[in-house]
């Protein structure tokens, strides 16, 4: 089983420069227009936070379930849910179904969503702060958590019951401990 490729954003690194939005609209439409972007940055100056909203490529995607025309399908190659515009009837059901607001409409009321640029996302390349990652799931998560441990746990999960050889066992054990610690901390924060 190949690793799933995902796109993820480090919220702490994002400065809210909106470059990714511009890159996205240029890549897909050749124009600079934030309304045509599939990634959107919402900035809240009070807490100095910028939040990119983008498609998470859910495992069990609500948009695909809600689509009455069966037009949203999973592309195994890139790990993206894509819209088949031949089938799409433009009913906006996916827009309402998405819990993240990741599907938007163009001025012609055509739904657009992140297609991972066919496996080479433009937003990742253009981000000056390295806040957007794209890669195999475990690698991205490892980068986000800034540690090796999580990555190894993912590898273990991926391979199932197969135990890593040699000193990797120890690494894995430590990884589980780290995860447990993160979980404890989050519980304290009551999230």
């Amino acid at each position: 089983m190949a690793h799933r490729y995902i796109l993820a954003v480090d919220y702490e690194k994002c400065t809210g420069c909106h470059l990714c939005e511009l890159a996205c609209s240029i890549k897909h439409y050749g124009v600079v227009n934030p309304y045509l972007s599939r990634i959107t940055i919402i900035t809240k100056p009070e807490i100095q936070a910028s939040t990119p909203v983008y498609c998470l490529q859910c495992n069990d995607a609500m948009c695909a379930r809600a689509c009455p025309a069966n037009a949203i399908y999973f592309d195994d190659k890139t790990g993206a849910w894509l819209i088949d515009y031949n089938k799409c009837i433009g009913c906006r059901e996916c827009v309402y179904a998405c819990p993240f607001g990741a599907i938007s409409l163009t001025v012609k009321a055509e739904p657009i969503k992140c297609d991972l640029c066919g496996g080479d996302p433009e937003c990742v390349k253009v981000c000056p702060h390295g806040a957007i990652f794209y890669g195999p799931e475990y690698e991205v998560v490892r980068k986000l958590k800034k540690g090796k441990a999580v990555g190894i746990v993912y590898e273990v999960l991926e391979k199932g019951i197969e135990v890593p050889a040699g000193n990797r066992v120890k690494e894995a054990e430590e990884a589980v401990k780290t995860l447990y610690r993160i979980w404890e901390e989050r519980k304290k924060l009551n999230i």
Partner: protein
Amino acid sequence: MVAKYILDIDIEKCNACMRCVFACSLARSGVIDERQAMIKIIVEKGIVIDIAVCRHCDPAPCVNVCEFDALRVEDGRVVLDQSRCTTCKACISVCPFGAIRESYGGELVKCDLCGGDPACVRVCPTGAIKYVPAHMVKTRRISSVAKTIHEYLEKIGGR
């Protein structure tokens, strides 16, 4: 480019006051009768589960199946020509939203956006139905998501 205007529906905001239904029926036929309305609020166990109103799809399934030339797309709206309709109901069978309804006397009715100024939007007290340019829908959806993330970031101490 002129943006396409759409009915933006937020079920969570709807409290089933039925004003839109009555306004729609008044605008269409001059009487207040649920069966004359082209919008329907579907309530199950006290919860609004669906607002059945035309999405003005493009390409629209109903237009595709109509053999009578009664349904057609007219500048972004799907309109039903009563005089050509024979009530064969093929359009109801393929509409994924139940947006075409049987009205008084077996006549079929569907939303025509009141020619650009929908009565339902004018009377909605909670803002559950809005008539907005298509690309503005994104803003509403996203800001609610961003709010949650901002709250989270605030909780863990901001950046």
